[in-house]
């Protein structure tokens, strides 16, 4: 999804959270790795939806979140 909707986005792992950098925007608190650990997929999807909304690409992301 990142490759399709936010090409060039970079995930940086920090001591407490992951940052996702895309263009001049940053999502500061992605709780899981790039593909999540699937222990709580609902929370992961919710975070990803909001992150993609912040990046302005929610419509693209919805194709992947169905």
């Amino acid at each position: 999804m990142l490759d399709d909707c936010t090409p060039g986005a970079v995930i940086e792992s920090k001591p407490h959270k992951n940052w996702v950098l895309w263009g001049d925007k940053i999502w500061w608190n992605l709780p899981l790795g790039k593909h999540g650990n699937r222990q709580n997929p609902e929370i992961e999807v919710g975070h990803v939806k909001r992150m993609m909304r912040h990046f302005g690409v929610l419509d693209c992301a919805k194709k992947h979140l169905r």
Partner: protein
Amino acid sequence: MTNYPLLFGRREKVEGNGFIARVAVSGRVLLTDEDGEFWVEGVNPGGLAATGNSASEALSQFCLDFLAVLFDIASEAEDFDHFRDQVGKFFSETSAPALEDWEEAVRQVRAGQVDADWLTKKSAETRLGVEVTLFSQPSATNNDLGDLALAA
């Protein structure tokens, strides 16, 4: 789904590499009740969100995540000036879609369509900002629990 426009005030102390900083933020967050699943989304600072099974749980998690981001920024800041610049960038990361919803929610509060009687009300035009200061003189008067209010 109901959106609540909130004003978010936090005062935190953060240790960095060779400094202690005080971060005082007056920001905006959007609280959303999605059929019993609660989300808090930052407007300023933007670019972060938290969830919970109740409004208070989601807000508590948001406060924790806010602090975690400050800790992450501190962990790689070379010095105080770098930390202050990065925190400023964090606060300025306005979430445009969340801001649009926040402003619409303010209109609903003013029209009496949305209320949160467990919160005090403050003007939506309350001044926003972040202040990062070098912490050099400890004083009890610096202690502050922060606050939360419904923007109206």
